[in-house]
């Protein structure tokens, strides 16, 4: 009985165990595997190691086109590509993002010439 009264007072005076989510957000942990957010395409050498190591076949590297592509719907965010990248240019964000609205793959293409008019082609 006394224990119960103690518990009641403790619960009345203590903070709630949960967070008031939309108003109070927990900051993401450092180095958490949140999302592959993109690539620093100017650093990329198009070796294709990330594509070979990806267990989900989510990456597509084309040397001829100088492009790097990720299908976020296939990606399992294991971080294998980030680890094997020799240039360390694949970016991992520590915050998990909500799902996308469009089913479009993220594609980055490197511009080789200094200022060409429009060498990009999709």
């Amino acid at each position: 009985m006394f224990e119960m009264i103690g518990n009641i007072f403790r619960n009345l005076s203590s903070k709630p165990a949960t967070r008031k989510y939309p108003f109070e957000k927990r900051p993401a942990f450092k180095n958490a595997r949140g999302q592959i957010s993109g690539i620093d395409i100017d650093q990329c050498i198009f070796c294709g190691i990330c594509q070979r190591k990806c267990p989900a076949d989510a990456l597509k590297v084309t040397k001829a086109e100088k492009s790097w592509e990720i299908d976020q719907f296939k990606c399992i965010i294991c971080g294998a590509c980030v680890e094997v990248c020799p240039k360390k240019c694949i970016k991992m964000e520590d915050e998990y993002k909500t799902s996308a609205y469009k089913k479009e793959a993220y594609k980055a293409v490197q511009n080789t010439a200094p200022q060409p008019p429009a060498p990009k082609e999709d």
Partner: protein
Amino acid sequence: MGKSGKSGKSGKTVIPFGPQHPVLPEPLHLKLVMEDEIIVEAIPAIGYVHRGLEKLTEVKEFTQNVFIVERICGICSMMHAQAYCQGIETLMNIQVPDRAKYLRVIWGELHRLHSHLLWLGLLADAFGFESLFMQVWRNREKVMDIMEETAGGRVIISVNAIGGTRRDMSPEVLRKVAVIADEIKEDMMQLEKVFMADYTVKHRLVGVGVLEPDVAYEFGAVGPMARASGIKQDLRTTGYAAYGELDFEPVVETGCDSYARTMVRLREVYQSVDLIKQAIGKIPDGETSVPVKGMPNGEVISRVEQPRGEVLYYLKANGTKNLDRLRIRTPTFANIPTLLKMLPGSQLADVPILILTIDPCISCTER
């Protein structure tokens, strides 16, 4: 009144239990042959979440398979990857650094901790004790936070790699883990009273689903199921990873009923906290992984103690980057026969508790 038809003269009714049922997190289907409220026979039907992961491992590279076997099951994902990595390391004669072995113990015990806390919560939920369920899961959240902080993911932590671990824990983080482990132990000490002495909890558990030690042995029970029936069987005593250098005894209860199985898991929570602290105290400095060269060849059986019991990995490699065969026998698969042994003779109202006490992990079983 059963949903299926009556089978004539004997007056037996078949009641389908699952695959969708409030107590089941995963689809397990049982056909219960009933005589009034008493079960006469239970016929299992599994295969609702088969994903063909064993076949998939044959077409992926052996290094990529670590991520695939982790996704067999969320709750024991770390141990799946550990069993697979230990198997490949045996095949390729890789000496894993000592620090990696200790890190594997720490992450493994954190996984056991969160699995048992999840189970204790689900059990409380199964007999309608909602507040207990919430208290236990509040404690579990601390473990999940540690895992996200140290490994980068809450459930699929992806720390294992062939040749060691992918991440390291700094001394500050290790100290923090020890402090939080103590907090969890303290909180569980308070909740322990409810599990051990509460009238309603005992009423639902004591004497329900008795599994005699010889029956448990004969039907090949593993893990907490076997240990609650007095069989002193724990694969961690074989000393894989760094368990050989840590001091612990398997938790054994002799009650043989659902209450004993609850006690085994409750005491294993404390054991895991103890093992985490021991490992943090003894962890050596050094590398966390060694480079892997070459391809595996030959066949090996690798066994690891998961929260639910013993998992068995059979690996057959042929010297190329793909494996010939990967066969996994999971603890739930070994425990389903004992469930079918326990069910006949019990009340329909006890079926949820009985199914839950084997701690079913159907996605493990079906892969």
